[in-house]
């Protein structure tokens, strides 16, 4: 049997076996000890069973490392394509067991090849990052290699969904590829991202800090806003990537898939009539509304731990994927601050790029006041959200749930920046500002001169409340298309999305706008 086979076929068997072995048993065991799966095991879980097709399996490193003696199967990265729930995606998975997954010329060429293919065929690209960094021995070639990837990331942006999973170290220049992609997933405890590591920090600013404290998953999920999703281990992380992909179209020319979860569009929820508390100073949880209206109560929240005063995420209405942006009155009263504006703006632009309709649930008392915010650039950051909503051409629907005050009302996808349909609950309060602030401005004299200023204040506030703290004034002016019963919200949204399905809205001819980045 063996004798009659062509020797090249036998060699192919050997070469493949060699590639599949990765960095060898010892290194694989170390990878497992660290609670990490190998590059191949990760692809095995990410993709549908048996669907992975490898590209460049035979490519090896230039052989400059460790005097050229070390074997570098696949040059430290596995690339190819496979299926997620039956749909094609392109993947690369860095192999930490092979020279630390370090990135050099060949390694980069492999990644660039699948990125080019992904863009040409219009399929998502998913990168599983686990790399020690640039392959120093390759010098400027290694730097050029990064640049090639960045270039492709930028040009694929808005064309195909790009997803990065940080499943090990990701340091130095390497961080910029993930940061350009649409979503960054991190694995708690085993992944780290920073531009300069703890050693450099120690040398330069004489500060002792651990990798975890400097750039662990928790830091990027809560403080920096770099990571959109964090999961406790590799298995959960890769499952979540599959879940995200199932929400998305494969490219910007497609619409997102329709998933019928057998949830009646006309389903009403009487609880919503009681959601907004009678006391305007009392908060409530916006998640109750979100989980009530979405199909089968399924919601994939983006950056849940970062700027929790705004909720962004993907869900479905009538089977169609929608991007949901909602103020969260339970956190900072739902006010817009720097982080919230940035978080929502980026999410809105992602949805617009990939034809995902936007649904906005508003309860916003305004922008967050104070020097911290002003000096931090709330003017710049707030403008991003304003720009992002205004620029979006996908179907845009807004429901004002309670407060919609001042400039923040306008920014939150209002009729004035041309959302398609703007509904309000009867509990909505659309005004320039809250009753106290307004009364203090309008009736300052009268209150000062009154015998009982407190009573006068209360009286004037009550009058203001009666006249302005409702959706009816705005509805009479046509700024609100309809005041809807809370329990019917789901049905009304689905009906609106139905007729907006064929919406066409052109953009002016220009190279691109100048979003205040």
């Amino acid at each position: 049997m063996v004798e009659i086979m062509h020797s090249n076929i036998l060699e192919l068997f050997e070469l493949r076996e060699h590639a599949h072995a990765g960095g060898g048993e010892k290194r694989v065991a170390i990878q497992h000890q660290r609670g990490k799966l190998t590059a191949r095991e990760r692809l095995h879980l990410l993709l549908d069973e048996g669907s992975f097709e490898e590209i460049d399996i035979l490519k090896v490193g230039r052989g400059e490392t460790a005097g050229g003696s070390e074997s570098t199967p696949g040059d430290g990265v596995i690339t190819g394509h496979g299926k997620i729930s039956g749909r094609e995606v392109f993947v690369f998975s860095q192999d930490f067991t092979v020279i630390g997954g370090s990135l050099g010329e060949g390694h980069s060429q492999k990644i660039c090849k699948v990125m080019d293919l992904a863009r040409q065929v219009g399929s998502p690209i998913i990168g599983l990052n686990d790399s020690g960094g640039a392959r120093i021995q390759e010098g400027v070639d290694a730097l050029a290699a990064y640049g090639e990837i960045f270039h492709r990331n930028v040009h694929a942006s808005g064309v195909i969904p790009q997803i990065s999973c940080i499943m090990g170290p990701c340091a130095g220049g390497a961080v910029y590829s993930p940061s350009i992609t649409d979503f960054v997933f991190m694995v708690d405890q085993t992944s780290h991202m920073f531009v300069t590591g703890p050693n450099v920090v120690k040398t330069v600013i004489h500060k002792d800090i651990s990798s975890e404290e400097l750039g662990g998953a928790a830091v990027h999920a809560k403080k920096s806003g770099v990571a959109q999703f964090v999961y406790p281990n590799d298995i959960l992380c890769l499952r979540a990537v599959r879940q995200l992909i199932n929400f998305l179209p494969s490219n910007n020319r497609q619409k997102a898939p329709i998933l019928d979860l057998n949830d009646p569009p006309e389903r009403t929820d009487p609880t919503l009539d009681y959601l907004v508390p009678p006391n305007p100073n009392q908060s409530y949880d916006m998640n109750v509304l979100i989980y009530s209206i979405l199909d089968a109560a399924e919601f994939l929240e983006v950056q849940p731990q970062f700027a929790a005063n705004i909720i962004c995420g993907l869900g479905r209405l009538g089977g169609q994927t929608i991007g949901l942006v909602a103020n969260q009155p339970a956190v900072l009263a739902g006010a817009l601050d720097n982080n919230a504006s940035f978080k929502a703006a980026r999410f809105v632009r992602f949805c617009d790029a990939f034809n995902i309709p936007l649904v906005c649930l508003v309860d916003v008392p305004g922008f967050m006041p104070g020097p911290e915010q002003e000096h931090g650039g709330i003017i710049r950051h707030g403008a991003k959200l304003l720009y992002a909503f205004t620029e979006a051409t996908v179907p845009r629907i807004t429901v004002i749930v309670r407060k919609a005050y001042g400039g923040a009302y306008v920014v939150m996808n209002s009729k004035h920046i041309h959302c398609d349909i703007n509904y309000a609950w009867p509990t909505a309060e659309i005004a320039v500002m809250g009753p106290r602030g307004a009364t203090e401005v309008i009736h300052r004299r009268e209150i000062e001169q009154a015998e009982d200023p407190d009573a006068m204040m209360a009286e004037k506030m009550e009058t203001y409340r009666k006249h302005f703290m409702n959706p009816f004034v705005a509805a009479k002016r046509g700024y609100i298309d309809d005041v809807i019963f809370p329990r019917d919200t789901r049905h009304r949204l689905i009906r609106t999305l139905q007729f907006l399905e064929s919406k066409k809205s052109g953009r002016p001819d220009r190279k691109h706008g100048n979003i205040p980045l």
Partner: protein
Amino acid sequence: MFEKILIANRGEIAVRIIRTCKTMGIRTVAVYSEPDFRSIHVIQADEAVLLGGARPSESYLSIDKVIEAALATGCQAIHPGYGFLSENPVFAEKVAAAGLTFIGPPAEVIATMGDKIAAKKLAVIAGVPTVPGYSEAVVSLEAALTAAAEVGYPVLLKPAAGGGGKGMRTVDRAMDMISAMRLCQQETSKSFGDARIFVERFIRRPRHIEIQVIADQHGNVVHLGERECSIQRRYQKIIEESPSCALSPALREKMGNLACELARKAGYVNAGTVEFILDEDGSFYFLEMNTRLQVEHPVTELVNSLDLVELQLRIAAGEALPFRQHEVSLSGWAMEVRVCAEDPKRGFVPSIGLITRYAAPRGRQVRVDAGVDAGSTVSVYYDPLLAKVITWGENREEARRRMVQALNGYHIEGIFTNIDFANLVLTHPVFIRGDLATDFIPTHLLGEGVKITAPLEVLHAMATATTLIYHLRENLVQTSLLPLKSRVGASSTVVKGNYEYVAKSDEDIFPLRLESTGSELLWRVLIGEAVYHVETPPMEYYRRRLKLQINGEVAYLRLKYSGNFIEVAFCGVSRTFEIYNRREWQLARYMPPPVTKVSGNILDCPMPGLVVDVKVTAGERVFRGQEMVILESMKMESAVSAPGDGVVESVCVQPGDAVETGTVLVHFKKD
């Protein structure tokens, strides 16, 4: 008969009374506090009157406001329900003085029975046996110690005023008396303005048996059999039933007659309950008489086919009882479970908030008396009782099975409830045997060293349900993506009929094999050696209740899925299952154990409530277990103790503050 009455109560009992009034054509007036303005009892009554603020003293306990409301709306009578003003003789008196009818016994009788010492004296006169105890109430610690020494330890401290177990404490040793007395008196003097404590012998393994009596204004007194309320937690009843396994017809007659005798001696009118404790040897002792409608009255109603509220109204209106004792006979068995807003997984702390989803069980011989619905808000100010589920069966086992199934299908979301805990009791072999005692819960479920193992068939059903829903949901995604998939080579897709998964929950791991039988609704499920034939309904993923037929038997499960993690509750067991496909399971062994974040140097508030007292100050050294902050929530007071030895850096709350779960109470100094 009355044309219009006022109901001086809230929640399920107000709703319950309104229901009977409607069938009798009596108009109803509800009263409510500010936070209750959208409650069901307010919506269902013909009229409603706002009493005042959230605190009971500003609303439901305000005698003058309630009477004023009744007069203003032209009511002829007031039904007090249970709790609140129902056993307040001053209220009964003032109602009568205002020219209204109090639906309940005369004020003097309430006063007598409300005073444990007077009630006990009356019981002795009526020939009803009483618990060995010290005949006088004590106020001081010294007196309590003397009394306890005379009666013999263990002793029970009982407030002279009040009921429902409020303020009661057991004391095993003299050295524990100080703290027990202090807590007991604090609670009672605040609630009732009466610091007197009654000391009596504590009887081990007693059953709680009570006799429902009813008397009209014409001297007729009958009893309607007993209720067994032995299943209690901290003196709060959870499960009640009628009749009781412990009573022979002869004993029933004896206890019933004595209860009637006591009612006669007291000059009792209307519905009342005589509570006894029944010792293992069959001897029984008088505990107290409740001069109101009991929470658990429906079990008596079901076995007697009577409406007790209707009888109360007729008697109050002067009508005679329509039957005599010899016409009373009990038929079948009834059981009741009290559904409360509390979290059994966190020491039964009260649970408050908006009820976001609500689906009550329905079915033959299942009755639900509920005071809440989707959209109701549960607050810290009132009793945690949300609803009662009552089932009836030809025999005890039938009633019990109906109850288990009813609770399996009772879905309440937004707050935690004791529904699954109650089912844990109902499915316990000792409960099934009927071997009850008031220490059932600490002995068999919550005591130290008690390990409850879930029956394998229950876990199998849960694993099957969770895996099926996960599989079908995943499959749906595949089909939905068809239009977007490549059409090249699509025809070669082979449909595989068998699927393998691993369902993991805590330490339990079940490898499952799902075999399709050609239909999406019929499956053969293999778990190890076991084979199940399962029929699912067409999946509606927004629903949280799933009705499966497993080997021909109907099972209701509650489940909530979020990706591979599926929470499921069935027959008292509530778990989260994680579903792994075969490939994931092979690699799962490499995954590190989850990191448990160590809490810092802060003391979190374990439950929502009001701060009653702060017992430490900044800089103070505290030891593990020392009481630091006293909270009141849903009428119960409890202490938050120091988690370890340390020094207090700052105290973040003060008495009167409303706090939520997770509010920081105390900061400790870092060592």
